[in-house]
């Protein structure tokens, strides 16, 4: 499909082509899409929030169709709270939460959870850690007990630490062969520098071996407290029973004085192109972006619409240009990551090695165009139609509802804004999009990461405007060094 100015012209060409191209039923009518049925009312489903005396906010979303209950606990501390020299401690701590408590061994936890058909998930993000316990409704009280135990009383047994450390290191070994992982962690370092948001969540081959049991305990002692947590109880449970169970297992959890949040300056956006040479690759992973907005920014919603026009659902200029027009990729997109203290936007695609320079130029051009030109009314309207129109799809499951409530609580947003999301989307104007694009996009200062077979595209980069490029191999990569490169005295083996 070519980009043709004027929709009418394209229609004529297409219909003429179609008639000659296929043997179609003679009687098949030419017609426009049918009108919709009368619209249904969309109601944000009910939920309830109460806060325990110790400061733990508890959300209950009842849903009685399927006999399951999910308990979701979020702590407001994640990998960004790793001490600088202890990179990966939050992630390792998280992996150990369900590997034994002061009253249950790892094996006992696994046996009991599996025997009732339950699931326990633990994990660590940038700004948060979480524990989810999901059970069929009969086991709700057990699930509450288990959740409280793994959150409050993890043992961090030395043998379990070594097991999980081994898993993290083996996992990193696999990840260092994964272009998507490499592109993501290097992009983080370029955009955020040494700000905690730029550090790899799981640590590095250099940092993980040095983490100690005391480090894990210290992280847990510092950040795990009711006044630093959120809890949701979701599913086939009565609200009063849910609150009573939560009070029973978390009511005596003591408040703590919390440390100040991680504070560090975001580096200013700087143009930098890093190529990670991975010989034998058939594609190049391309990541392009820069610092964006924190979640609480008043411009968050508008900028999100702008980035969706660039590369998201309901818009996606990148997909139109790179996939539909030029067949350069299976997927091209752009998205915002917005956290408590900052965020970024990232455009990404993966393309065959010899098309790397072309695809990179097209992405950078689209970022520049979004800043330079006003978006058309129609393009904005399409994006709004998707974002506002899909609102009922986001309310289908109780977990999806709970996720929206938890996100609001986590970032201190107004819960009353949840039901008005479609209205707030519809209020965005073309001028708003242009204002935020001009305010926040700096196309001359993009962070760019290319992971692939360097010899297949390096010579093409100057021709598309990128003549200053840093190239390093995977084995030279050191995420903790300012230039991302191992020092020359380093033999490439992990430090003890």
């Amino acid at each position, binding site marked *: *499909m070519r980009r043709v100015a004027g929709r009418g012209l394209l229609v004529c060409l*297409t*219909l003429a082509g*179609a008639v000659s*191209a*296929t043997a*179609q039923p003679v009687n*098949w009518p030419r*017609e*426009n*899409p*049918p009108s*919709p*049925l009368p*619209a*249904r009312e*969309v109601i944000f489903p009910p939920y309830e929030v109460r806060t325990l005396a110790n400061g733990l906010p508890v959300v209950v979303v009842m849903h009685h*169709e*399927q*006999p399951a209950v999910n308990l979701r606990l979020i702590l407001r501390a994640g990998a960004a709270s790793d001490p600088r020299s202890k990179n990966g401690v939050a992630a390792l701590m998280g992996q150990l939460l369900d590997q034994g408590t002061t009253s249950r061994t790892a094996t006992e*936890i*696994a*046996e*009991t*959870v*599996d*025997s*009732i*058909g339950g699931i326990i998930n633990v994990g660590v993000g940038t700004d948060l850690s979480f524990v989810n316990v999901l059970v*069929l409704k009969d*086991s709700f009280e*057990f699930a509450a007990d*288990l959740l409280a135990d793994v959150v409050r009383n993890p043992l961090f047994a030395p043998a379990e630490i070594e*097991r999980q450390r*081994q898993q993290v*290191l*083996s*996992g990193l*070994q*696999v990840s*260092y*062969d994964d272009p998507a992982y490499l592109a993501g962690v290097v992009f983080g370092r370029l955009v955020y520098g040494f700000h905690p948001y730029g550090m790899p969540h799981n640590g590095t081959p250099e940092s993980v*071996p040095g983490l100690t049991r005391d480090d894990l305990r210290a992280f847990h002692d510092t950040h795990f407290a009711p006044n630093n947590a959120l809890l949701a109880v979701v599913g086939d449970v009565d609200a009063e029973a849910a609150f009573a169970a939560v009070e029973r297992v978390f009511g005596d959890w003591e408040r703590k004085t919390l440390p100040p949040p991680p504070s560090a300056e975001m580096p200013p956006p700087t143009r930098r192109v890093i190529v990670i040479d991975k010989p034998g690759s058939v594609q190049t*992973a391309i990541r392009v972006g820069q610092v964006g907005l924190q979640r609480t920014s008043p411009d968050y919603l508008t900028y999100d619409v702008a980035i969706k026009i660039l590369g998201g*659902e*309901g818009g996606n200029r990148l997909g139109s240009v790179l*996939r539909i027009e030029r*067949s350069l*990729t299976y*997927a091209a997109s752009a998205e915002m990551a917005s956290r408590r203290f900052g965020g970024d936007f990232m455009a990404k695609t*993966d393309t*065959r090695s010899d098309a790397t320079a072309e695809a990179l130029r097209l992405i950078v051009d689209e970022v520049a165009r979004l800043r330079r030109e006003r978006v058309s009314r129609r393009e904005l309207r399409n994006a709004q*139609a*998707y974002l506002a*129109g*899909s609102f*009922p799809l986001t*309310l*289908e*499951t109780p977990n999806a509802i709970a996720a929206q409530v938890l996100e609001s609580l986590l970032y201190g947003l107004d819960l009353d804004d949840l039901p008005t999301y479609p209205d707030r989307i519809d209020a965005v104007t073309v001028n708003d999009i242009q204002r935020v694009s001009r305010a926040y996009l700096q196309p001359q200062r993009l962070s760019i990461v290319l992971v692939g077979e360097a010899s297949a595209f390096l010579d093409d980069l100057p021709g598309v405007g990128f003549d200053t490029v840093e190239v390093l191999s995977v084995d030279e990569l050191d995420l903790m060094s300012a230039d991302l490169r191992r020092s020359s005295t380093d033999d490439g083996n992990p430090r003890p």
Partner: protein
Amino acid sequence: MLRVTPAVPPCRLRWVACLGAVVGMVITSTVVETAVRPPKLDYQLHTLDNGLTVILSEDHSTPIVHLQLVYRVGSKNELPGRTGFAHLFEHMMFKGSRNVLPDSHLTLISQVGGDGNAYTTEDATTFLETVPAQYLPLVLWLEADRMATLRIDEATFDAERQVVKEERRWRYEDTPFGLLSEIMYDQAFSVHPYKHTAIGSMEDLEAASVEDVRRFFDTYYVPENATLVLVGDFESAEALDLVKQYFDRVPAAKQPVPRDIPREPSQNEERRVTITENENWPLPAVIVAHHITYDGHPDAYPLHIAAKLLSDGQSSRIFRRLVYDDQLAVSAFGQGHIIEDPNLFYAVSIVQPGRTSEESEAALIGEFDRLKTELISEQELQRAKNQFARDYVLGRATVEQKASHLSHAAVIHDDITTADAEFDIFMNITREDVRRVAETYFTSENRLVLTIRPPAPGGRSFLPPGGGQ
């Protein structure tokens, strides 16, 4: 889009106070003798004059509707030299029809706040949309338009072929262990088209012609080969009228849909293969695979139970032995890929640095053998059933999931009642059933032992020497 996932049938649960090996006083107070049984799906089944199967299931909990249109054609219907074609064709279904411009199908859906997608498996190709409920006429109209009048031309076909090649590079070739399934199936099968995976080979994608597209469309994209499922906020009578309005006018097939798939001869001696993969293979992988039966065969249900025992949760046998206790593996699992024609039950170990492939092989084979030599415990059987019940409940939370259960029953089982009836079948599986199927299928003659190694050692390692202990 291509998604190859085994469809796992649901199961039945019975909570019993079976403590035995299960540890801790917690259990005593939490496991009770009640059956937590999810509600049955309520549906209607119709067949239009042109042969289209129609399934309607009302769900008024959210004002949305999900449409799923399943064509009973997948990569196992591909001819030699045309691997990957069913999936490539799936992409062509987004390239326009008489009333729909190329690439505008998904735009028309997103403009009403809907989501659309498609995926291709070995057995079927599924097109799906979820939209706010009032847009049911739009998605019916869109699907009927492309079923009747797909636009097929050389230029769009060549362009989309490039997109699919990028998909193959991205999803399989440049991802660690991405080619594991492709290598395994190529080694395990000789003549059945399950020998190749749905993405196909680059050579065959290159060889496909626009004439192939036309023939495939005329042969398989006909109403009698399709099942339309609607789940969501509608009144069935009104929805059926709309279905008829848009689909009755799609002409019936001119010839019967071919079903001649080559049969795989039985394997009579163990196959052992070692392969070196030069790219994107960071650690050795050991695969132990056995040929099994088809989805719906009575043996299929105990095989699902065996998969639960081996791999569901941190107390499952393979995880416990290979990953936790002996630390032979970074990751290890076993599962039955139980689909329309007989496929494989396989276990995989990604070998922990410092440990050997031979140790993983022995441990995996040991776990298969143990299912034959020892009856599983009552507790393990009950645990597996409880895990099935959980999957059953969690697997029916959305309109899309409900539609998938209904379409799977109707298309693959050719019996929509199995969407609910399998719960009772699982309920009645015994320990002896599990041993019987293990004895039937997990034999050495029926086994493939495949080791896939990275290039010569000396590569990157983040572990201290002698690690893995």
